[in-house]
């Protein structure tokens, strides 16, 4: 008896869903869309990086990589890098480059000294604490996920 009623309801539901009229769009939708379309689009560089063209993303990544490499090399061997740079420029650039290289050498020497004396000895402890905190957070999140959410977040 129950099953028969259930079958009837199933059929009635199928019928009702099939005949259900589609909801109409609100009157505000069209003006909203047209107003948004009328606004000038932001230039590509003002949009979020993730929405850039893949080619531009690649070029920008390579640019950042080159800049970081240059800074890294300038940090390690400033004289060599500035000698390379000045080789491509006018004669005055050579004087300027050697002055800059000398200044950068002094700065890196001071920073290296600071690192060796002040930061270096505690860096390993800071790194160990950060690693421990990160692992503890990961373990806590896994426990919460398994116990409270039943592993729902990983499905």
């Amino acid at each position, binding site marked *: 008896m129950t099953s028969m009623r259930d079958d009837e309801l199933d059929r009635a539901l199928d019928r009702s869903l099939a*005949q259900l009229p589609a909801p*109409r769009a609100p009157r505000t*939708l069209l003006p909203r869309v047209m107003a948004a379309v009328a606004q000038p689009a932001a230039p590509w560089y003002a949009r979020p990086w993730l929405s850039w063209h893949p080619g531009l993303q690649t070029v920008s990544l390579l640019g950042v990589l080159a800049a970081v490499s240059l800074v890294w090399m300038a940090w390690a061997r400033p004289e060599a890098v500035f000698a390379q740079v000045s080789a491509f420029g006018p004669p005055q650039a050579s004087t300027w480059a050697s002055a800059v290289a000398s200044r950068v050498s002094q700065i890196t020497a001071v920073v290296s000294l600071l690192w060796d004396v002040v930061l270096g000895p505690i860096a390993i402890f800071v790194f160990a604490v950060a690693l421990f905190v990160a692992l503890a957070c990961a373990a806590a999140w896994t426990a919460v996920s398994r116990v409270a959410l039943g592993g*729902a977040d990983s499905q």
Partner: protein
Amino acid sequence: MADAARFEAFVREFEDMVYATAVRLVGNPSDAEDVAQTVFLRAFERFGTLEHQPAAPGWLKTVTTNLCLNHLTRYRARWQFFSELESGSGAVPGFIDRLTAAAAVVPDDEHSEAERLERALQGLPDHQRVPLVLFHFEDRSYQEIADLLGVSLGKVKTDIHRGRDALKRVLGERTR
């Protein structure tokens, strides 16, 4: 200017279809309007190629579905959490009663029957409404839905079954 007029005609032609898909998937009129606006902005970006294509409605539906699922993704953990809760202990306590009560708010005449069902459908929890809408209104197979949502086939069947049970309860209340 002519482009704008043509695009306006395009929006007029498909706005009901896009909005209907969105509101049934996200279950919330204001979120659905936001999604529909984004869909048409995407359509505008490629209006030149889309305008005369017979596949335009299909493209719009696909984009709408994907944007709705993206919109719901931020609630995904909660969605699956409640789904798991339900599978462990039957229906969420009081949910069916609330659904029936919400559907009963509309006066009970011929015209309101569809509204009651629509309201009940939109009142279903996300994890039941989304697969049910994809199955009944977007003509997707169980397997396609499972692939789209990244869940198992069994879960899709169970969620659709539970969603239908809730809607049948609303229909049953009406016919009693």
